[in-house]
Every structure is written in C-alpha cells, then in structure tokens.
C-alpha cells in the first residue's frame, strides 16, 4: 500500500510553469494565479491586461511561439526571478490543493468544509497497476479511507459501500467538470453558489486551463454515504475520487455544509 504524504516534484512544477505561460491568452486566464493580486480591484483589470499582453508578445517572438525553458520566462516585462519563484511554488502545489484554494476564493465560504485526502505513489508501475484497474482502485480507496475512519463499524461499512458502489468514470476532464460541479451543486442548490460558478472552478481543476495542465480522471463512487467520513453538517451521496496521472496521486474529496 502506498504511503500517504504531500509531495511535488520539480519536474511537475516546471512543466506546469511552462504550460501556464504557454496557455495565457487573455487577462482572465491570470485570475487566481496570484501573479496579479486582485486585492486592489480598481487596477486589477488594467494590470492583468498589461501582463497578459506582455506574455503573449514575448511568446510570439520565440521559435514555435512557445516557451520551452524556464529562463525564457524572465524575458517577459514585469516578470522577475522573485515573481517566478513565487509562482513556481504556487503551481508546485498539488492540483487538488489549487482547486481547494480556488473553491474557497471564488465559490464557497467558511460554512463549507471542503477537504481531500491524497494517496501519493512513488512508482509509476504501481500507480498504473492501481489506477488502471477498477477493482484495484476501489481497494486502494477503501484501504485509505479505513485508515481515516471514525470507528470499527464504519470500517466494515466503508469497505462494503466502496465494493458495491457503481463507479461513474469521466476520462475527459471537460465532461468530468460537469459531474463534479453537480456533486457540489446538490449541497445547496443555488443557495450559496450557482452551478455555473462552481463549474468554472471544476473546469479549471479537471480540464485544460493555464492553472491545471495535468491529465486527470474523475471517478464518482455512486451512492457512497459520506456520513461515514465526515460529520457535523450536511453531506450528499457519492464519493468523488480524482486520479492525477501527472502527479501520480489519487485525491478523495469530502465536503460538509454547515448551513
């Protein structure tokens, strides 16, 4: 069984950094990147537009119109090595963590307890063997959840429910973003956020976006009772599990609404 811990490799963060700068097209693509602070909302639009223009113009002068080395990014007016380091640290976080931060920044408030547990694999072969087989993935998820479970009775029930769940798989991030958004939406049905609002965040998480270049698959374990994992608020059925093929991680999401 792989150990659970937080880690990110240099390769992933550099890849994400280049992907980020190669996919900036509009000022809106910078939203949530921390590259342009949105605290001062009066100048935010102007600064975002200026920076996105600078990124685009520098990129257009390169062979194949793409950044291929991190050093090339220092040619962009307004990007210093300090800024780049901060952004690299930011993008070096796991995709799940970036999504969680984006959700709290753009969609949900502190009355939601949105959290994830992460299984990290060190070896590609073991990762592929586990995530490439539905039964192996289910067993890995159940085993991980049992470690975090709240009592011996729930251990049995977790294993039973995971084993008997119908698993809905979304290999295309774009389609998965709708399914994951619906899961969040059923918590509050327009009371706290609209479907479109939450889908914008799930799209950033699961589909191609400057902030998220990873290939990911969403598995929804239908009917799983999340009360087995969290308590003290409102939950909805189904357990979202996201396999990140670049990070070699599996993120298991839970959410609680204290309404």
């Amino acid at each position, binding site marked *: 069984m792989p150990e659970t811990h937080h880690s990110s490799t240099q390769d992933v963060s550099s890849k994400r950094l280049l992907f980020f700068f190669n996919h900036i097209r509009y000022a809106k693509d910078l939203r949530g990147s921390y590259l342009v602070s949105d605290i001062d909302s009066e100048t935010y639009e102007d600064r975002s537009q200026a920076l996105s223009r600078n990124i685009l113009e520098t990129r257009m002068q390169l062979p194949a119109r793409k950044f291929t080395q991190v050093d090339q990014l220092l040619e962009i007016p307004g990007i210093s090595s300090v800024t780049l380091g901060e952004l690299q640290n930011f993008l070096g976080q796991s995709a799940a963590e970036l999504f969680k931060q984006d959700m709290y920044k753009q969609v949900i408030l502190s009355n939601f307890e949105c959290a994830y547990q992460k299984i990290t694999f060190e070896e590609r072969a073991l990762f592929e063997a586990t995530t490439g087989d539905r039964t192996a993935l289910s067993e890995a998820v159940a085993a991980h959840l049992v470690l975090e479970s709240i009592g011996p009775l729930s251990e049995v029930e977790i294993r039973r429910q995971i084993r008997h*769940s*119908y698993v*809905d798989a979304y290999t*295309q991030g*774009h*389609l998965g973003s*709708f*399914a994951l*958004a*619906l899961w969040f*939406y*059923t918590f509050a*049905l*327009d009371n706290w956020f609209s*479907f479109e609002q939450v889908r914008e965040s799930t799209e950033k998480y699961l589909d191609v976006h400057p902030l998220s270049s990873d290939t990911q698959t969403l598995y929804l374990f*239908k*009917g799983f009772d999340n009360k087995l994992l969290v308590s003290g608020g409102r939950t*909805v059925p189904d357990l979202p599990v996201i396999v990140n093929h670049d990070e070699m991680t599996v993120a298991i999401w839970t959410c609680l609404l204290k309404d």
Partner: protein
Amino acid sequence: MIPENLSPLVEKRLFHFLNRARTARAITKVDLTKSPAPGKADYGIGETVAQRIIDKRMQLPRRRFTELSQLEGIAGLGKDKISDVIETLEIPAAEAFRRAMYNGVIFEENFELNYFSKKLADTSGLGYRSTQTDLLKSLLLDSLGDWVASDATPEHLEQLKGEIESAYVDTYSNSAEADSYAWALWFYLFDADNWFTYEQVRLPIARYLGGYFYGDEQTFHLIKGVKNSLYLKGGITVKDLPVVVNHDEQSLSLWMGQLFD
C-alpha cells in the same frame, strides 16, 4: 363554453396555467406553445383577453380559479379559444418535451430521441422521498418486451435484465433544477458541444421536469450503467437510462437517444 368531460388532469393543468400567469403576456406568450405540434401554436388569446382573464382572477376568493364555471362570461374567451388551450394541455408532458427538444436543440436528421411510456395505477412508491428502486426496476422489467427492439435476441434480453436488476438508481435532491443538470449531462455526453451546448439542452429539460406550465409533479431517475445499445441500433448511444415518473399523469417514461454523427 367549457368542453364536457374534461379530465381532472387537464382541469388541474388549466387552473395551474391560468393561476400562475402574473401578466397577460404570460398567457399569450409562446412558452406555452413551444412544445405543442406545429400549427397548434397560436390559439389566439391576445393580450386584451388575457388581461380580462387576469382581472377576473383577481376578483376571485384567494385570487385563484378553482371552478371551470369561473371562466364563463369572460369577454372574448369563447369555446374555440378555450378548446385550443385545452388541446395543448392534453398533450402528455413527455411528448411536449420531445417536441420542444426538436424545436431548436436537436435535429430530426441526426438525433433520434424516443420514449416509452407506461401508465401506472399508483406512483406513490416512486416519489423523491420514497423511491423504491426495486419497484422502479420491476416496472421496467415487466415491460421489457414493449420497449426493447423487436429483433433483440433472448441473450440480449437476459443481459439487459441483469443490468437493470443490478443497476444503481440515481436521484437528485428533490429538485427539478438539479435533475435538469444531471439529465443535461446525459445528453451532453453524446457529443459534447458539437451539436448543442450544455445550457441549450438543459433549459427545455428544466422546463419539462419543473412541470412546464402544466404544473405536473414529476420525479427523475437515472438507471446507471445500463446500455442504450440494446434497443437502439446504428447510432452513438451513451450509458444510463433516464426515467421520468409523472405523478399527475400516473405514468412512467423511459427515454432513449441515439446520434447519427
């Protein structure tokens, strides 16, 4: 003026429609006429008569129509006009939805959208708070021969039976709005964004499941993992069987689709 032998269902729908209208325009508006068959769109209630209907309603106890006789004596609301409205309200909700889908969302040339409807004696076991999934499955299995392609082999039927028996039945939060997002995703999976956008397909679903102007109470279920390809052949299909239970019509509709791309 009111046709005789009006069914309780149509009477309920008529009251719902007239009591729900906040403005005259809501009565004359095409929203009512988008779903019905071409040629039935214009039942000829203009804004003047519509305003008279609303004025009459405002004079009633609780400002609501509760008796058909209350519609008598509204100038301009003759037998023909009221008959046209009634004819519209007699269309089963599923059929109205199917027509609405072909009216601006999907194309007859490349998308086959069909439903199989079954009348039920009692739908109380199929409400949101009391859905008996075994009952739902047994109703579908009882009618297997009616909605599966006539050339399906015994092996096909056996496979489908097994899939339905073991399927997970998804329901969505007692909310037509949430249902509409779930069913829209089912349509969207056919061909993401090539022929229609997610929002384009979601809006008629929200109107249908929200009860339209009919006001029908409905519940939506997705029978997960069951393949469409056993009763539809030749086109692109997706998994999961959408089922709509209409508690006012006392009916169940099973939906099937295939795209010829």
